[in-house]
């Protein structure tokens, strides 16, 4: 097969998710080589294969070629078709791993996504479905993606056996709006979701109480909800977790969560989540670290105007993401210290939107 000259090369298994997303959105083919070449078990992992498979299902005309050893892959993106899809996620990663890239693609599909994902709903590596529902999706609303945007948690599934199920509904848009988010505001309320499946339901209340013992000092508007799932809906393995979010007067949202570990009391899990939330709050900015890439991507795709957002320092993922955005979209962000930020390390990110138009959108 002859390789197109516009092919963009990447190396290594890192950052595969956002590279695939950027390729599909930009329509530019990419080749990723040296995927764990020296590993005892070289090549793509089962969850990466599974991700490729769902991307193939969610698009039309996408060509994916994987080398015999699995250490290289070629993606020639098709159009994002969307529509009704069901996917069984492998138990090696949570559904959050798969939702993260799909959320970036869904607004630009031909037909609105109605996606059913089955597997693990909360784990230590990716955002739990609770935080995706309460924190990630509101971030899309900043860009005018809101009507009919929903994540329903039908069944919970804790590791290792999973058994959870979520429905993700996302509207399609023609264009995303330009972001101008520079005022972090002050925290006005804290919300939380505690869940405990296949263990004593008291665990939820114990987590809530422990978390409140720290948070009550700050503001009165705290509501920590104990989310009960019974029988079949509680999945196949025992587990519990506390997901927290703090919302500011300007709708900046900070989030944190902690999940059950063997031999750790629910109170300690809750304190971990709570302290991690306080650490996020103390970093400030308008967008928390885990949502930097989503927000920056939507800024790149924004209308042809200068978008601005105040955030903390870029994370490892964000730095590589900015570089990869530059290779695929040619967009460079201007990153300067935020004025009036005092002693904090907040930065102002600004870029000129590419004016991305969803050409896939079927006209109703």
């Amino acid at each position, binding site marked *: 097969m002859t390789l197109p000259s516009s092919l963009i090369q990447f190396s*290594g*298994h*890192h*950052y*595969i*998710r956002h590279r695939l997303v950027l390729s599909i959105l930009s329509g530019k083919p990419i080749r990723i080589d040296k995927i*764990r070449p*020296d*590993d005892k078990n070289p090549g793509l992992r089962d969850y990466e294969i599974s991700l490729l498979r769902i991307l193939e299902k969610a698009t039309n005309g996408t060509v994916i070629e994987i080398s015999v050893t699995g250490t290289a892959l070629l993606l020639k993106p098709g159009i994002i078709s969307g529509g009704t899809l069901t996917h069984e996620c492998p138990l090696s990663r949570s559904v*959050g*791993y798969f939702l*993260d890239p799909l959320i970036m693609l869904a607004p630009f599909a031909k037909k609105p996504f109605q996606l059913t994902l089955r597997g693990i709903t909360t784990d*230590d*590596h*990716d*955002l739990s479905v609770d935080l995706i529902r309460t924190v990630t999706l509101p971030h899309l609303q900043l860009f005018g993606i809101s009507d009919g945007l929903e994540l329903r948690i039908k069944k919970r599934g804790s590791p290792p056996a999973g058994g959870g199920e979520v429905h993700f509904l996302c509207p399609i848009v023609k264009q995303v709006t330009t972001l101008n988010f520079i005022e972090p505001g*002050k*925290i*006005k309320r804290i919300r939380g979701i505690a869940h405990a499946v296949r263990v004593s339901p008291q665990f939820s209340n114990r987590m809530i109480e422990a978390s409140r013992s*720290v948070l009550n*000092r*700050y*503001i*009165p508007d705290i509501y920590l909800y104990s989310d009960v799932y019974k029988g079949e809906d509680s999945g196949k393995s025992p587990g519990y977790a506390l997901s927290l979010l703090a919302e500011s*007067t300007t709708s900046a949202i900070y989030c944190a*969560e*902690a999940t059950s570990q063997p031999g750790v009391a629910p109170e300690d899990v809750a304190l*971990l989540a*709570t*302290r*991690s939330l*306080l*650490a996020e*709050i*103390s970093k*400030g900015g308008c967008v928390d*670290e*885990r949502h930097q890439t989503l927000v920056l991507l939507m800024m790149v795709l924004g209308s042809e105007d200068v978008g601005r957002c105040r955030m903390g*320092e*870029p*994370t*490892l*993922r964000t*730095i*590589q993401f*900015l*570089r990869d955005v*530059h290779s695929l979209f040619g967009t*460079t*962000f*201007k*990153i*300067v*210290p935020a004025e009036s930020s*005092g*002693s904090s390390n907040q*930065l102002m990110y600004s870029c000129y939107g590419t004016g991305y138009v969803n050409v896939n959108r079927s006209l109703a």
Partner: protein
Amino acid sequence: LESSSSQRPRRRDWTKLIYSSDLTPAQILSSNKEEDSRESEEISTEIDEFFHVKKSDSTNDDETLDQTKDPLNPRALQQWEDEEMLDSIRNLFITGASGDADE
């Protein structure tokens, strides 16, 4: 480029570091933080040369997952047991004083 790994002023040119340097993301961040726990671990392995962990080019070889959440660090979070630390962020809440917004 040797200055980039040593002490640098607080004001960093992020645009330049990201777009026109060959540093890996990890190198950019590690030349930055002082109390970052990851770095302190690296320092401790340097001291413990007897137990040399094979870590050639730490950014490429070890299996770090492509994950959205960084693992929680209970030790670093312990600072939030301290009352003074808890009080230090009061100004970030609507109920906190707005005028004296220093530490």
